[in-house]
């Protein structure tokens, strides 16, 4: 089986400061991987390098493209990479307003990716947008409302709908539940789990919330000071952490 994503020796330096160093792993279709670590551990830098938002100083991010098989997305041309990021890739930002067009209706937000890949039939676009709003549990009657009138949880779900409408194969998520109420988080997690299963999505989730990765991620990477200190099955890393830092991280979580 070909990995969907093969990350090879990704290094990003900010001057003499290490963003992330020599990170390698493979992600297979349908897998969800969590990346945890405290603020400044390099997990967001790594995510942005993988998603093409930052150019790594070294390493390759090889994605199994539909048309041409495995390709290094770091060295591919910008138009190709941008095309990937609006077809096969999706990026869910921590703050919905970074990932939404706040001045555009919910339907327009969801429809944008469809129009970006050439859909030119208003009725079809609107039907698909409405269908997706319902899939993320937003009432279809809100299709013409702007996200500014939505709650935080609804905005986040709208962002997810907007990302998934073109049927991507890989979703990058940066703290997708950060800043939401606990009860809203739970609903979002449930929704994400269902979507991942039903669409066969692969996902990489960056978070500092160990409860989120336990529920969503099959695999886990623990990062500290820009390096991966431990990786493995999520429940194994959380229940039987091997590295000193992982042990500290796990034992620092307050039990409820």
């Amino acid at each position: 089986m070909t990995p969907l994503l093969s990350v090879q020796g990704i290094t990003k330096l900010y001057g003499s400061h290490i963003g992330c160093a020599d990170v390698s792993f493979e992600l297979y279709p349908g897998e969800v991987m969590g990346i945890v670590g405290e603020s400044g551990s390099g997990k967001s830098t790594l995510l942005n390098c993988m998603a093409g938002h930052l150019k790594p100083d070294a390493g390759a991010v090889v994605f199994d493209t539909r048309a041409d098989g495995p390709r290094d997305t770091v060295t591919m041309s910008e138009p190709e990479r941008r095309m990937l990021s609006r077809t096969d890739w999706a990026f869910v930002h921590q703050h919905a307003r970074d990932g939404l067009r706040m001045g555009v209706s919910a339907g327009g937000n969801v429809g944008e990716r469809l129009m970006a890949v050439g859909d030119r039939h208003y009725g079809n676009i609107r039907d698909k947008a409405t269908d997706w709003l319902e899939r993320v549990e937003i009432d279809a009657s809100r299709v013409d409302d702007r996200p500014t009138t939505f709650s935080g949880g609804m905005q986040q779900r709208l962002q997810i709908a907007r990302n998934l409408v073109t049927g991507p194969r890989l979703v990058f998520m940066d703290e997708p539940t950060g800043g939401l109420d606990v009860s809203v988080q739970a609903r979002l997690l449930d929704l994400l789990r269902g979507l991942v299963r039903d669409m066969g999505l692969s996902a990489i989730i960056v978070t500092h919330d160990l409860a989120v990765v336990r529920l969503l991620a099959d695999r886990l990477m623990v990062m500290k000071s820009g390096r991966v200190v431990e990786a493995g099955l999520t429940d194994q890393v959380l229940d039987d952490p091997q590295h000193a830092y992982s042990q500290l991280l796990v034992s620092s979580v307050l039990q409820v």
Partner: protein
Amino acid sequence: MIELKDVSKTFTLHNQGSAVIEVINDVSFAVASGECIALTGNSGAGKSTLMRMIYGNYLTQSGEIRIGDVDLVQAQPREVIALRRDVLGYVSQFLRVVPRVPTLDVVAEPLRAVGVSAEDAQVRAKELLSQLNIPERLWSLSPTTFSGGEQQRVNIARGFAHTYPAMLLDEPTASLDAANREVVLSLIEDAKARGAAIIGIFHDEAARDRVCDREIDVSRFTRGLAA
């Protein structure tokens, strides 16, 4: 079906003076299809630890743990995930679910994961929940608010939804009343009858005697180690 060869495990507590604790030493045994064996030994003997190692939840330092044709000790995470999805079931003592997910969906999920249609999975889930005497009015609610006994039964229903060829049961009859205990034991007997290899921890001796073919005393692998 399940085979352990020279399996050992240590815990290294980096944040507590790097204490190294050997918990399991040199375990070897095998469980055939249709066989149920019980892990026995006093509290703290390492029964749950061994069980978690066989599920891949705890990392095994040396030896071989073969489930079907996969060696869990060497397997890649994705192989373990596939194994858990298709082959290896685990009924733990605690229910761990996403809050707000209805009980029915919690039970149906393992079936959905192996590609059973939503409708068929629901039918099977309803069957198990009524068999385990979970009142129908609770099915649409999240089990997170249920009593301990109810949670335990939901957990069992979930564990038995898919017909795994290998199963691990951690105290499946604990905190159950006589009627529900009977249901669980018959579920185990049915699983054996269809050829599942089962490893269980039972404090309930009568239950153990009824469903288990052999006993393995874990304390003989841990004697003098963790104490």
